[in-house]
């Protein structure tokens, strides 16, 4: 199966440097302090924030900054084959650890010493770019919760097929193991890269192209997230003024 057809289109009809349909909503859960639902193509993620609150685990309390408790899970029905363990497997734990470090670099952690922020992200449907969806959903939920952050964190994946870069890779494209897969997360205003993860091998000559494409993808996603957050604030303000 060819990933890019002779006409220059991908399996799902996108152009190589085009992101998937991106839909998001803030404040979807009423019991959480902040929440967000996000769809990146067929990948769907739900994030919720609790806190800052008094830390539960005494061993993890830090006297000068907040402890971030990140839990990544994939619903049992999220993949083609039913998953037996939605969370707690080695990969989920690894991802949670990675995500914690990512968010520590963007949240102003020193404002809330001795407390804890819980971030729970569940992938409801996995169709490639799960880490990206997870990061984007968590960012939106943090905005909704009013947790102070340096900047948004926007994430996107990129790959290289026959010397052509493609972005926002979906599951069927991800399954070609010979293709490299780059997961990138940036702070869009300063263009600081805070996550750069590569699966499979890539020739160094192509690194610059693929990075450039990935950053462009992140910025495209930022535009949409940015607009959605502003809409959400305006709506909230309108409701407040009306009452």
């Amino acid at each position, binding site marked *: 199966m060819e990933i890019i057809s002779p006409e220059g289109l991908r399996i799902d009809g996108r152009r190589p440097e085009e992101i998937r349909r991106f839909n998001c909503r803030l404040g979807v859960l009423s019991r959480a*302090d*902040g929440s967000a639902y996000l769809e990146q193509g067929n990948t769907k993620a739900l994030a919720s924030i609790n806190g*800052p*609150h*008094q*830390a539960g685990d*005494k061993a993890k*309390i830090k*006297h000068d900054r907040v402890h971030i408790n990140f839990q990544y899970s994939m619903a049992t029905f999220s993949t083609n084959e039913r998953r037996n363990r939605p969370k707690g497997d080695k990969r989920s734990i690894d991802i949670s650890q990675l995500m914690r470090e990512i968010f520590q670099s963007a949240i*102003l952690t020193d404002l*809330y*010493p*001795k*407390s804890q922020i819980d971030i729970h992200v569940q992938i409801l449907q996995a169709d490639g770019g799960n880490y990206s969806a997870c990061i984007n959903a968590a960012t939106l939920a943090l*905005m*909704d*919760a*009013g*947790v*102070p*952050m*340096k*900047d*948004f964190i926007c994430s996107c994946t990129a790959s290289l097929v026959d010397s052509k870069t493609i972005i926002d890779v979906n599951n069927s494209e991800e399954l070609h193991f010979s293709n490299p897969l780059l997961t990138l997360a940036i*702070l*869009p*205003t*300063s263009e600081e890269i805070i996550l750069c993860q590569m699966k499979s091998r890539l020739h160094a000559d192509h690194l610059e192209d693929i990075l450039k494409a990935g950053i462009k993808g992140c910025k495209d996603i930022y535009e949409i997230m*940015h607009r959605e*957050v*502003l809409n*959400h*604030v*305006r709506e*909230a*303000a309108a409701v*407040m*003024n009306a009452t």
Partner: protein
Amino acid sequence: MAAEVGNPVIPGQRLGSIDQFSAGLGTYVRQRHIYASLVGYKDIISQAGQLPKIQIKTGNVSCNLPTIGKVVTAKVLNVNPRFCRVLIICIGTTPLKEPFKGTIRKEDIRATEKDKVDMYNCFKPGDAVLAEVISLGDPRSYYLSTAKNELGVIFAKSTAGHPMVPISWTEMQCPHTEKIELRKVAGIKYWTDS
């Protein structure tokens, strides 16, 4: 929240230079510029003799934590001869979504004659207490103090179950049974508007 003017701001948005403004709530400084760290509306407060302060106004108050010097309302959970455990339910005038645990040690109850304090003559479980946060304490709880005239028990029920009336600095009386119980009473007449 009053009627909002202008556009909302988002984290990472540059608000101005530190030569023109000072950074307030919801902002941070990087490379001599002030950036927003919250989603909300920009609010500029002019201060006499100082640079105007930029802060971000949000409709969200979930990020409220007890800090040193704040007066909190707490409910007494249990009392023992050395300290009592309380649940902080309100900071200033804002109720908390989720309570924090606190401790009032015996030596922090009164400002004078600290060594003569008897815990059981000061608080009983179920009392509502006004106290000040004096330290972030140990990992488990915040340390609170009632060693000021305006701090102490503000609401207590008698053993008969009726709300009691304060009759002196140390006593409260049940209006039904007229039984007098001992408490560290908050001096309401010392309350100020702050």
